[in-house]
């Protein structure tokens, strides 16, 4: 098969000219007549990983997008194509096996020192090849094209696609299994599961708080009901006021005014001054300052982990729950004015950032 693919490639007109001229041989004259084997080529290319499976110790697994992938039994070098995967690898204590990550991978700070292969949507395939990975980890933020190209090059790509907090825990356990760290993964997942169950117990019988989760302020983009963030909100005893089948719907301010969210949830960008500024900016902004929640200072700034399906998400959920349910977790806020309340919520953000 490999021969068909490459021989076919050499028979292409222009590359044929290039290679042919370089090597002093004419391009194959039957190039066009020999076409039309694309279907076969694609089919046999798909079997390529299986072929490598025979020679090295590999096992066939089905990834979370339904692709069959031949993953080496003994994974030693992994390239992560998304920040949440990098974070998960570190959380499992497997950073020594992480050969490279993306320029977006900033958590934990040590991830920044790993060799980068580019940004998640447009990584350099060459840079990935150069790192000799046994396995490339991808998520739904990567493009299909990237996954397909890597597969065509004979590199195993396992794609994670968690849609809920539970999915994330399962993905984490699975990643541990794939990378030969079954025990670490099992204990980490068990710990996170316990944290979540405790949270659920304390929030039992509390009504869900209606929040506006701000993904992006201008234009205003929020979350849809099928995202894992929507699920994370439920774990934190909250619910988005926007019901949308789109994952990242763009909505109008009018809609927000009409729906009257009880809290505004913003994500922070890991810098304390920015967090304070974010809240101040929002309270000073036209239309935004008409929203009841903003007037009352009911703004929670939460660590960016809430937007990443990785083990850090659980801690972010806990912090969000603390910010949204002060009557359970924190001292009463009723006595303080809006100004103080907002400082209190800022503090939530700061705690989250300082982690």
């Amino acid at each position, binding site marked *: 098969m490999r021969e068909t693919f490459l021989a076919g490639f050499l028979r292409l*007109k222009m590359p044929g000219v290039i290679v042919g001229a370089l090597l002093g041989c004419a391009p194959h004259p039957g190039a066009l007549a020999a076409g039309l084997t694309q279907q076969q080529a694609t089919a046999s290319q798909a079997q390529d990983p299986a072929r490598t499976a025979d020679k090295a110790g590999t096992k066939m697994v089905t990834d979370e997008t339904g692709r069959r992938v031949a993953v080496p039994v003994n994974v030693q070098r992994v390239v992560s194509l998304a920040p949440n995967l990098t974070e998960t690898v570190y959380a499992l204590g497997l950073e020594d096996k992480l050969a490279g990550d993306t320029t977006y991978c900033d958590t934990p700070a040590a991830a920044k020192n790993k060799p980068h292969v580019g940004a998640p949507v*447009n990584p*350099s*395939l*060459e840079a990935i090849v150069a790192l000799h990975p046994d396995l490339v980890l991808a998520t739904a933020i990567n493009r299909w094209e990237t996954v397909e190209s890597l597969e065509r090059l004979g590199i195993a790509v396992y794609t994670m696609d968690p849609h809920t907090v539970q999915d994330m825990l399962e993905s984490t356990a699975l990643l541990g299994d794939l990378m030969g760290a079954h025990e670490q993964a099992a204990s980490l997942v068990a710990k996170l599961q316990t944290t979540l169950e405790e949270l659920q117990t304390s929030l039992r019988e509390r009504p869900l708080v209606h929040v506006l989760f701000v993904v992006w302020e201008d234009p205003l983009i929020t979350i849809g009901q099928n995202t894992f963030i929507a699920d994370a909100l439920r774990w934190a005893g909250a619910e988005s006021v926007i019901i949308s089948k789109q994952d990242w719907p763009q909505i109008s301010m009018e809609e927000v005014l009409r729906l009257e969210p009880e809290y505004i949830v913003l994500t922070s960008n890991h810098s304390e001054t920015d967090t304070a500024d974010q809240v101040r900016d929002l309270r000073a902004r036209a239309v935004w300052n008409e929203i009841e929640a903003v007037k009352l200072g009911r703004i929670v700034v939460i660590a960016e982990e809430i937007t990443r399906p990785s083990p850090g998400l659980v801690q972010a959920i806990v912090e969000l729950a603390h910010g949204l349910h002060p009557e359970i977790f924190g001292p009463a806020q009723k006595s303080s004015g809006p100004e103080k309340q907002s400082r209190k919520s800022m503090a939530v953000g700061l705690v989250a950032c300082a982690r």
Partner: protein
Amino acid sequence: MTLARIVWICAALAAILFVEGVVSLQIGAYHMSARDIVVTLFQGAAGRWDEMPGDFKSVIFGLRLPRIALGILVGAALSTAGAGFQALLRNPLADPYVLGVSSGAALGTILSMILTPHTAGAMQAAAFVGAFATVAVVYFLGRRGGQLDSATLLLAGIVAASFLSAVIMFLMTTVSGRDLRGMAFWLMGDLQSDPRVDLRWLYFLLIVGIGCIFTTSSDLNLILTGEQEARHLGVNVNRVKLVVYISASLLTGLAVSVSGAIGYVGLLVPHVMRMLFGTDYRLLIPTSAIGGAIAIVLADTLARTVVAPSELPVGAMTAIAGAPVFIYLMRRRMR
């Protein structure tokens, strides 16, 4: 204008393209020495795949060579289409984008991405259909009193382009998640993706398209002096227009379906060739094709090196490099 002159100039340009291709093969995030590249190419040509390191095979035959091949295809297709449109409209602003043909092809491709994802050849077929349909509508709208009117046609093209872009925006906001990201990237022009169809077929269509336009080049020269004059000299103007429109939209659909919207090439390259070699279409069509290939291969080589290890969409590169050059050339010509 002799045949020898055409052959010589094209040979010179092809030599430039060849040298550029070899240089481009050496440049990339994965470091390979010139010697390794030559050895790998020799081994590849001899069919000795087992002797070369797997990495070299992946990088040269899996990544760089297909990409150069795709760049040559897209550049040649867009430039030739641009040259054809400019002749027919006798308007230097004509370009597959201005006429809405690219938008039509892009809409077709996006529809196929939504309706029949991961089907080999569906994107190409849909892009052709989109481009043809747009040309047909624009052609129909561009007629006035039974005659094709260049100004009306250009306006119809602009209207079609903005309408189709709006439909694309609508579709993109209703599709979410992973597909959207792929589309947004693709719309900006991207050569890294696998076209999912045999390159030989694409090259076959490219040569047919360029060939058809080339056969009309003597007639195009006469049409340039004026349609009435051309008619009086015995040129079947409407037939020439039809051939060029269909071929140019075929070429545009071809390019857009594999690489998304790469701008400026169809506008810029024919102008540069005209400034270098004059307005004779018998020379302009082949030189535009090779020149377009040179431009895209250069732009793509830059796109994958300037922000390494990330990559820029090649469309961004052509716009950044193309716009200032275009302005400079226009100003110099006006002086």
